[in-house]
């Protein structure tokens, strides 16, 4: 997947292996430089996972009746995992984010790809304003974006709902059927720009001679885009797909904020919301840890599947 990109001598340092050691006394230096990161890495990336796995294998049992609220922690093995996996609401959350991802990720990436191709095309006017306009929402924190759209979905405040009403069209962005897509809209609005920039950067590294050759062969701009540009930026498309899929599984901010507007978003609407509700609202650290680990494993499996499917497709063509 790591391709040599013109103008980016990525493996520059590999030219002189072993040369560094001749410097004398530099043996410990890299480890001293790396020490802060390694300590933080072990403490706040490795340790939390280890602690969470440990916590997920136990259960707090309350013994005694009412006045005697002594509780003790007992080892229960995989019982929390069984409980989590047999919770229909938790499983439904996975189904919901999968449905969301199957629709939202392709739509968003298709938009990002169209804008990136327009920016890359020599004859597109208004490039600067297009790039700035599409990218601007990414500068707005996701939480504020959700608040903002929350207002635009609310009847009474929303000029969209009110405007359509005056035309005799009544829409409800927060109904049981539509609210998932209203959340998808917030994600698309926020993240199309950043994906556009990644794809555009990839397009810029494609050698220009290829387009010349295609043009001389009589290929139009659209044809060049579809049969030369898109296949050549497949690695960047894979990267954006991967990040979007991971992002979808983690869905939390937008539904949590929009939940204030409608009862159609439950506390366990997405897996991450279920983890939060179990940990914070119900105070069950043990079950919450098991859920977080299940979510981590599913995320990992899905990213492996996405990258292997894309690799296979790339090889076939």
């Amino acid at each position, binding site marked *: 997947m790591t391709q040599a990109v013109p103008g980016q001598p990525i493996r520059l340092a590999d030219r002189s292996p072993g040369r*560094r050691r001749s410097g004398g006394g530099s043996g410990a230096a890299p480890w001293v430089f790396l020490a802060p*990161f390694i300590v933080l890495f072990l403490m706040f990336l490795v340790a939390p996972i280890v602690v969470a796995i440990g916590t997920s294998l136990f259960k707090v049992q309350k013994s005694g009746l009412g006045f005697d609220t002594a509780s003790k922690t007992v080892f229960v093995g995989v019982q929390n995992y069984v409980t989590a996996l047999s919770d229909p609401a938790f499983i439904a959350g996975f189904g919901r984010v999968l449905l969301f991802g199957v629709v939202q990720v392709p739509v968003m990436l298709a938009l990002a790809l169209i804008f990136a191709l327009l920016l890359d095309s020599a004859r597109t006017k208004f490039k600067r304003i297009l790039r700035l306009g599409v990218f601007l929402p990414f500068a707005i924190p996701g939480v504020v*974006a959700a608040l903002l759209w929350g*207002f635009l979905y609310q009847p009474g405040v929303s000029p969209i709902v009110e405007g359509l009403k005056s035309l005799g069209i009544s829409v409800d962005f927060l109904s049981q059927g539509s609210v998932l897509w209203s959340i998808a809209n917030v994600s698309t609005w926020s993240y199309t720009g950043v994906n556009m920039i990644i794809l555009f950067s990839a397009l*810029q590294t494609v050698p220009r001679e290829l387009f010349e050759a295609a043009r001389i062969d009589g290929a139009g701009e659209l044809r060049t885009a579809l049969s030369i540009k898109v296949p050549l930026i497949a690695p960047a498309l894979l990267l954006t797909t991967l990040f979007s899929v991971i992002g979808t599984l983690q869905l939390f901010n937008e539904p949590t904020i929009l939940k204030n507007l409608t009862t159609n978003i439950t506390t366990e609407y997405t897996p991450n919301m279920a983890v939060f509700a179990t940990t914070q609202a119900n105070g069950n650290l043990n079950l919450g840890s098991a859920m977080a680990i299940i979510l*981590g494993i599913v995320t990992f499996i899905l990213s492996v599947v996405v990258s292997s499917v894309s690799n296979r497709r790339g090889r076939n063509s």
Partner: protein
Amino acid sequence: MTAPTTTVRVRRRETRARSGEAGGERRSPLAQTVVIIVTVVALVYFLVPVYWLIVASTKTSSDLFGTPGFEFAKFNLFGNLAALTTYSHGIFWRWMLNSIIYSGLGSVLMTFVSVISGYALAKYRFRGRSIVLAAVLGSMLVPGTVLAQPTYVLLTHLGLVNTYAGVLIPTLVYPFGVMLAYVYAQTSIPDEILEAARLDGAGEFRAFFSIGVRLMSGGMVTILLFAFLGSWNNYLLPLLVLNDIDLVPVTVGLTGWFRQSIDIPALQGLLVVGALVSVIPVVVVFLSLQRYWRAGLSAGGVRF
């Protein structure tokens, strides 16, 4: 200037050259129309919510509900700002201050740790280097929100729940920043200069602080920006870790108002103007340093 920014410049020039060379031919009128329509629709979709926020911030609470959303009414922006400042003893500005502490201090520390680690990984050969690199790459795939709950569990064990440190320290692990710094160090610090410094008798630390840091300064700005906006966006971890309303960042504070505004309609006006105020510094920094963003994203993308 460092390599990433130069690359962007060079590319821009290429683009310009290309548009010049293609200027002789004309696209069919139909295609031209389609492109213009796509551009206009895209701009409306991506910019109208922002326009609404600006308009709504200037309205009184009654106008917010009583007048058409996209039209300006009585200009009350300053009244709204005054209300925002006095509400609940100025809690909003406390939240802004908290966000600045979490993101400002946090991003400076994140950048330092990332740059020094990326430099070490790029400029030294040592045993265990590939293991550290693999760990950095692998952990880029661990989403922060999956880690939030386990981190919260750990923080309860450490007694750091409901403290500034509890939110600040866990965000300092920033594998993406290390990866970017690694790429920048490789492309912008020639080995020869470091060799020369060593021959002149500079120690390893001297070489890093006086040469490495200087040559990587463009990349450092990029990492700082990513780190700053990443931590300004942080929501789930503070939501889990903090109970004290005086400690929360502005994202958590505003969503608290959003929840309450269902019962207290007067909060809606404050929420709108508060959202605008909270976004302004970020958008200004973001747009004025746009080229660093693009450089960072392409460098990050190139790695995969």
